[in-house]
């Protein structure tokens, strides 16, 4: 995608350098009418602050929770959200799409 996002990757770098635990979440696959294209980033730090978007607001809450987990474990995770998934429905990806989000620790 064209690089028109606010500079969230720079924020991730700055957080990490300032001593925060940081995770990077990236949309890697989409099916149906997913709100954000593959390549979209969300960055999260260890006090729960996040910037960017992987779904236009639908599943960010759940991604942040998982990201905090990844920050403490250091092990990357693949998350999937879709309408067929009861949990995803609860957190609200109601647009009919399915997305897969890769969450990794920075550093």
């Amino acid at each position, binding site marked *: 995608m*064209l690089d028109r996002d606010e500079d969230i990757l720079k924020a991730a770098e700055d957080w990490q350098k300032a001593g925060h635990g940081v995770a990077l979440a990236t949309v890697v696959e989409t099916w149906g009418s997913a709100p954000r294209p593959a390549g979209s980033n969300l960055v999260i730090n260890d006090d729960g602050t996040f910037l960017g978007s992987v779904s236009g607001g639908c599943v960010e809450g759940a991604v942040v929770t998982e990201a905090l987990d990844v920050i403490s474990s250091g092990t990357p995770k693949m998350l999937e959200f879709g309408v067929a998934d009861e949990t995803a429905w609860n957190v609200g990806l109601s647009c009919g799409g399915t997305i897969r989000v890769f969450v990794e620790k920075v550093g």
Partner: protein
Amino acid sequence: MKLATLAEVNAERAARRPIIVITDTASGEQRAVKAADFAGDPLHAELDKHLRMGKSGMIEVDGKKLFLNVYAPTAKLVIIGAVHISQALAPLARSLGYDVTVVDPRTAFASPERFPDVNVVAEWPDVALPPLKVDHYTAFVAVTHDPKVDDPALLHAFERDCFYIGALGSRKTHAKRGDRLKAQGISDAQFARIHAPIGLNIGAVSPSEIAVAIMAEITATLRLPKERAA
């Protein structure tokens, strides 16, 4: 992602140079490849294609699922000449995602009233262009019809290696332009890079249709493989 990789991605983005991050989503293994290093990379065909399309996505290589995240700069469009065509071209280009600037030293032409919501610079190219940081990710269009304005602007576009350079004018006008630019040291190969008459030949008549022809040609140059581009 390693901090060093993230820092490298950010440095390339800040310099408006493309970079692709390749992630094995099963193992978490990761590397970043700068556009300048694509040619020597085993995945160069996939990297080229994804960058051209400006599209991130999954690929499968030797049974491994790899995610290619493409970080490409926002393309700019510089329009020399605040003329009628430009009034149609600027909003069209913006809707296609370009950062648009219109340059024309004639203040009566380069007025905000004629170009609402567009960055308009009412200066000669030698003053207007350097601050715009014209680069490879810039499409450059000269449509004033006036050599005093178009010629120095085109010389700047060559110097900055714009991915698309187009100039308005008939074949006859363009031949005369060739004589002038070559006298200023432009090579035949460089001159041949100018798209003139400007725009894909779609039989465009009105300024709006000419704008469509120009943006179609710019899109083709950006997205098609080099040998197929118009």
